[in-house]
């Protein structure tokens, strides 16, 4: 079976409700191609999401999934990975879900370095709730009724924050480059530890100007590095409209200490006076 044919088997019969032109389609496509390339058994694969347009993703795959609550994809995914370390666990969601309400969990997931891949579909807007600013929205975007003068707040820098929080794999993808994304996803899943991919994924309905991204997004102008200092410089001198692998290093992956076997009976005996 060709890779492409195998990729189709990872799709469920549920058709995405995303608007025509949504960048998330490319992410779904890239994911299935990556799964096919890695030959992952469907029953050993779980995709966990929060709330938002992009969080609808798990239902469109035929693997196990959890469409959880807003901002909590990472803890649900973490709990699953801790309980079942042999499964391949993907966490996914949007920029609001991941960097606003889910911000705290993002920081700690980067630190904790469980072997999970986290894909954030960043369209710099809250699409599901009809177009409010998100943490990655520019401060002067004034098209939301909630912030009619723009947020006036400088945007969240996902890749830089991931780096500062100790993430061991940081990449940026672009839905206009699905093949590039597929390669990043493959590398992310293969990477032992927490892999973060921020995908620039335009919203044609609430951010129609993002159609211009395909003319603006360029390859990341630096080679991937394992030196956080270099990576920090690269990130701070980059305008964010670039895709590629930014940082990858082998930090210790969180794992259970291997301790001697005991029984509950022994614990009960500890109470004896």
């Amino acid at each position: 079976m060709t890779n492409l044919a195998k990729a189709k088997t990872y799709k469920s019969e549920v058709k995405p409700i995303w608007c025509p032109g949504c960048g998330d389609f490319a992410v779904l496509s890239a994911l299935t191609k990556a799964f096919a390339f890695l030959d992952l058994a469907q029953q050993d694969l779980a995709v966990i999401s929060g709330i938002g347009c992009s969080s609808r993703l798990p239902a469109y795959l035929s693997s196990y999934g959890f469409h959880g609550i807003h901002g909590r994809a990472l803890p649900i995914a973490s709990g699953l990975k801790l309980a079942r370390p042999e499964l391949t666990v993907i966490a996914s969601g949007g920029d609001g879900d991941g960097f606003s309400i889910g911000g705290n969990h993002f920081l700690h997931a980067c630190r904790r370095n469980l072997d999970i891949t986290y894909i954030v579909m960043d369209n710099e807007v809250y699409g599901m709730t009809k177009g409010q600013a998100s943490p990655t929205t520019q401060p002067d975007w004034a098209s939301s009724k909630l912030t009619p003068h723009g947020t006036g707040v400088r945007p969240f820098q996902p890749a830089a924050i991931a780096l500062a929080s100790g993430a061991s794999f940081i990449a940026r993808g672009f839905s206009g480059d699905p093949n590039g994304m597929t390669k990043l996803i493959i590398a992310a899943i293969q990477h032992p530890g927490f892999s973060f991919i921020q995908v620039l994924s335009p919203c044609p309905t609430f951010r129609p100007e993002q159609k211009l991204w395909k003319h603006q997004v360029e390859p990341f102008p630096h080679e991937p590095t394992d030196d956080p200092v270099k990576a920090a410089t690269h990130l701070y001198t980059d305008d964010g409209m670039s895709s590629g692998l930014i940082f990858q290093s082998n930090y210790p992956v969180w794992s259970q200490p291997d301790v001697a076997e005991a029984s509950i009976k022994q614990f009960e005996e500890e109470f004896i006076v």
Partner: protein
Amino acid sequence: MIKPESIEDLETFLALAYLLEIESSDRYSELADNMKVHNDPEVEKLFRKLSEYSGKHASEIIEHAEGMVLPNVASWDFEWQSPEGPETTAFDFIEYQITPERVLELALHNEIRGHEFYANIAKKSPSPEIRKLAAEFSDEESEHVKLLEQWIAEMAQNKASTRDDLDPPNMPE
């Protein structure tokens, strides 16, 4: 990353040609599904037709490859001139309430790219066998281009479809 014009063996070339068509067909089918979800039966039908069309071309490639064992090539191993295969409609070219005229325009664009793709290989390939086959495929693609131009002309004779959604966007969750 392999440049398609530097492929040396026939099997890889045919595998790539097959990939090109089947990816195109799968994509049209996905876009048809998307149109169905958004309740646009006219455009859905058009995408399904285009999907069948590319699917037929894919089968034709397989006929050329009879008796051969084709390698399982990955789309991302090749340096396309476009983000995906030349006849694959990028997701971001689609929009809500896309007109059938626009769809055909995109399909024509795909076929033109397909034609150029093979023409390029026909000129530059190191293998004479591949150059020959690529020239044949290039000619076939020209036929596809003509066909689409014809469809576009036919459609232009009918009144252009108007699209208008008077309702504001929804908040599903």
